[in-house]
């Protein structure tokens, strides 16, 4: 398939009086890693959640892998193509790590139990926690939980992975272990949209950094250009605040 794998055209989203997305447009190509930055409340999460329709939007158009997000049928089809990783992990707390990975494989992808477990074991190795399959989420550290969450999304063989501040709920020593897994994914050619203010990750993995403010794309460029030589005043102000920390 040619053209962008995610196509977002002039999308508006209101939460009551709050105009969270104000005619936002963004394209993401296959295999591209896009990092989204922007101030708190600028609409980053809302945009990401619109891509797999966890949030409905009021107007505009979103097409994912050639599928327009309109009918219920299409929304379920898109959700099977798109994995999402949340800031707060959202692991199923009554299931073991293994069950977290196999449940959707079995009931959505209709894979037999053995096959789903084999896929899960391979993924546990990939994210670096081969010995935690039988643990419950509460028995894992934050970094381990987030890696299980990434593995859970990958088990569905998504074409696109979305990350909403995957490391901002983690202690500093755990951030690297999660970012490393994401870096491996990026190198493997996964299409990724990542909300993150980890500049190191953006420099290492991103093809493009998009700065969002007040529900609009203010500027987009390569990480080098964005961080070193942005000419936009709003971008520069924001970056000066973030980079200070």
């Amino acid at each position, binding site marked *: 398939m040619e053209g962008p794998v995610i196509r977002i055209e002039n999308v508006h989203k209101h939460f009551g009086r709050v105009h969270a997305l104000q005619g936002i447009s963004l394209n993401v190509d296959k295999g591209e890693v896009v990092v989204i930055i922007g101030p708190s409340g600028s609409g980053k999460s809302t945009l990401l959640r619109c891509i797999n329709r966890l949030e409905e939007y009021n107007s505009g158009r979103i097409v994912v892998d050639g599928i327009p997000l309109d009918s219920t049928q299409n929304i379920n089809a898109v959700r099977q193509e798109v994995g999402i990783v949340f800031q707060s992990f959202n692991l199923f*707390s009554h299931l073991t790590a293994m069950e977290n990975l196999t449940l959707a494989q079995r*009931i959505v*992808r209709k894979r037999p139990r053995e096959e789903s477990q084999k896929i899960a074991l391979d993924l546990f190795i990939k994210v670096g926690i081969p010995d935690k399959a039988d643990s419950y989420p*509460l*028995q894992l550290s934050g970094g381990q939980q987030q890696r299980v969450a990434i593995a859970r999304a990958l088990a*569905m063989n998504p074409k696109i992975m979305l990350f909403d501040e995957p490391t901002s709920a983690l202690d500093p020593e755990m951030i690297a272990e999660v970012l490393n897994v994401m870096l491996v994914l990026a190198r493997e050619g996964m299409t990724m949209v990542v909300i993150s203010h980890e500049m190191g990750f953006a420099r290492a993995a991103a093809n493009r950094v998009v700065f969002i403010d007040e529900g609009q794309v203010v500027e987009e460029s390569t990480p080098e250009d964005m961080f070193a030589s942005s000419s936009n005043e709003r971008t520069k102000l924001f970056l000066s605040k973030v980079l200070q920390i």
Partner: protein
Amino acid sequence: MDKQPKPGSRGSKLVTIPTFGRAKHIDPWWGLVALVVASIAVLVTVRPDPFRNILLFVRDGVTVTIFITVTAFVAILVVGLLGALGRLSRNRIIHTVSTLYVELIRGIPLLVQLIWWYFAFPVVVQHVGEWLNVSALVNYRANAISTAIVGLVFCYGAYMTEIYRAGIQSIPKGQMEAARSLGMTYAQAMRHIILPQAIRVVLPPVGNEFIALLKDSSLVSVVAVADLTRRGREFMSTHFNPIEVWTMVALIYLVMTLFSGRLVAWMEKRYHPET
């Protein structure tokens, strides 16, 4: 409503509480159940007249009370789940119907509802039967026990609806979102993710409902059901010994409620092995 353990309390399941031999397996409150059973036994042996006679006389009433309570409770669990799903439904009509059900039912005393089902409902059915010209409906007579069960289910179903709804809503929103974003349908997410977690939360209040229902089932004695309470009244009306009869009836209820209470506690423990 009990809260789930916070994600921060990581590893809480690994904590082992020091125990002394087998002591932790025995719940001391079972002693209270045994005590009440023992006092009944003592009364029956020491003064068989009237206590043994009372016990034998109300025995089938106990069976009726247990039958009504258990049957109604199973139906209440189902009605409550349907009600809760309706209350949470995005469909306007379903949502309105289930909300109206809860609000109206909870505003009417249970006793009045039971009386309505027994005395008024059959007349309604008969009128409808005449109107539709269906003789089966015209000749409809209320069966006391099943009408009483229907009344209890309707009433308690409304309270159970609210307990389930609160339990489902206490599960963090992210659980449903994670499930949906993995491609699960709403029904799959409910069945595999939300309800199994909600059950732990609602178990204590649901257990309390069972015990409350057991006690409230005594109200069906007013609508021609020969339950424990009604049998007690029948015995008293022929023997005129209120102290003995009602003490005995109270003790029997106490055995049943205390026993159920222990059962509920035991089930809670099975679901929350760490507490």
